[in-house]
């Protein structure tokens, strides 16, 4: 039995977001999957070319419209719906973009959605975390009708390149709503690696004490070529911006090396890092829960240890 899978590409203008390549790997777990990527954009050419190179992709569809300048769920959903009919599975990444869009699509279709797919057992059986990752739930759909899913990107490797899928333009003429308008986005410009895809991440908690205190982490991160993350407590305290938050309600990441500095390790934070290959914890409190998940623990004063590490690197 074959399944026709549609993946909605996430992109920033001309650059395909790495989460899309992870969705492709997830989709390949569906037996006999024929994978199509749809790119909604003003001009889809550059992103479509990147999507076409992903190994395992059979076809890339471009849906171009001047209204697609910003990824507004209300504007994109009807366009994805317009081409969705032949597909058994419609997937997107479990990023803020994908979570916003896919559930709107599911709503229009009246289809079930499996959120945060972490493993695929069959075309109808999926595993996903619930209760902040304190339980893993296997769900099964009837196999009748369509299924929408968001893909927990930390659970999948990115699909390799080297593919050459055909790129087609899809003629979509649906009326698009004007009730939702983009105003602005404020994103910190940073030369550091992207938190969601970085191989190394250095993260700070409330023990850093201030935004100023976070600077020692930035220095260490730069020396390691790492991205910088933060616990919810540090973000709530205003030491770090919200986009740096790692955890259940922030970013869920799977770096090779995760260094938690002054983070006690609330369960909501641990949910966001449990796929990290190696976790290092540096904390004054030897009883902190972070040490229960750390591969390497170091008890001590971070304000002495971090500069020392930096010096020794």
């Amino acid at each position, binding site marked *: 039995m074959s399944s026709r899978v549609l993946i909605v590409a996430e992109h920033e203008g001309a650059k395909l977001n790495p989460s899309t390549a992870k969705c492709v790997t997830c989709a390949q777990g569906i037996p006999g999957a024929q994978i199509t990527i749809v790119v909604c954009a003003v001009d889809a050419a550059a992103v479509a070319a990147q999507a076409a190179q992903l190994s395992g992709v059979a076809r890339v569809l471009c849906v171009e419209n001047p209204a697609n300048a910003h990824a507004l*769920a*209300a504007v994109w959903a009807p366009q994805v719906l317009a081409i969705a009919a032949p597909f058994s599975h419609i997937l997107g990444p479990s*990023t*803020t*973009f994908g*979570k*916003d*869009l896919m*559930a*709107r699509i599911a*709503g*229009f279709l009246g*289809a*079930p*959605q*499996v*959120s*945060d797919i972490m493993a695929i057992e069959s075309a109808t059986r999926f595993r996903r975390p*619930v*209760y*902040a990752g*304190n*339980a*893993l*739930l*296997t*769900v*099964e*759909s009837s196999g009748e009708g369509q299924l929408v899913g968001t893909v927990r990107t930390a659970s999948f490797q990115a699909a390799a390149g080297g593919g050459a899928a055909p790129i087609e333009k899809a003629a979509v003429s649906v009326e698009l709503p004007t*009730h*939702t*308008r*983009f*105003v602005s*986005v*404020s*994103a910190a410009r940073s030369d550091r690696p992207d938190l*969601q895809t970085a191989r190394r991440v250095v993260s700070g908690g409330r023990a850093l004490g201030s935004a100023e205190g976070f600077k020692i982490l930035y220095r260490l991160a730069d020396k390691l070529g790492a991205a910088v993350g933060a616990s919810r407590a540090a*973000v*709530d305290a205003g030491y770090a*911006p*919200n*986009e740096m938050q790692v955890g*259940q*309600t922030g970013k869920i990441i799977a770096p090779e*090396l995760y260094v938690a500095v002054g983070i006690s390790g609330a369960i909501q934070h641990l949910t966001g890092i*449990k796929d990290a290959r*190696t*976790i*290092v914890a*540096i904390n004054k409190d030897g009883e902190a829960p972070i040490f229960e998940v750390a591969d*390497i*623990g*170091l*008890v*001590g004063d971070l304000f002495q*240890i971090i500069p*020392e*590490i930096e010096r020794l*690197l």
Partner: protein
Amino acid sequence: MKRILVGIKRVVDYNVRIRVKPDGSGVITDGVKMSVNPFDEIALEEALRIKERGLAEEVIVATVGAADCQQQLRTALAMGADRALHVQADGVVEPLVAARALLKLIEREQPLLVILGKQAIDDDNGQTGQVLAALWNRPQATYASKIELNAGTARVTREVDAGLETLEVDLPAVITTDLRLNEPRYVKLPDIMKAKKKPLDTLTLSALGVEQRQQLKLVRFDPPLQRQKGIRVTDAAELLAALKSKGLL
């Protein structure tokens, strides 16, 4: 009347240590503290603040679920909601069913704004707001960290992966809340007494014409995989040596 409809869900309290039942049929909920989903509390707090600023006249709180959900509706009334609607439903209420029921309430109450939590901390689905907005064919602004109401529109700042995004949506609309939108108020004892006299209407899914349908079977719950016990090092030099031996530096 300018109304705000707030959807809430009864969930296992966020402080409870979750344990999976040995037979894998669910998590242990017997004798466990139940609460209003924290994101929904934020939704209610925001609705109350909008009303207190004079931009809405009535805050209605609604839930879809079993009879014991009325405890959480009473908590919401004690927080300051004007009245409560309980749509009785047994078993698993999927986001689509909850959204269909909420849509029926919207048709009856004609709210200016619907505010929900961005996700429930039990099933972590994060769908109901978006599904509802789709069924209603109205705007959605998810993961709100700031809401500014103007005549006929709302300006919503959203916590997105890139940073903060601001959208303008025409009203009525659905907004879902993120953590940093506000800090919900504490309920005081006199408010709990007062809440007992506030109206709480009970409806049923079938009376609303909504089919209780479960599209995803819950096959099995498993405990999460445990990480292997790690090692302790005593200083920075040992830490770096350990990382090097793992090939990480």
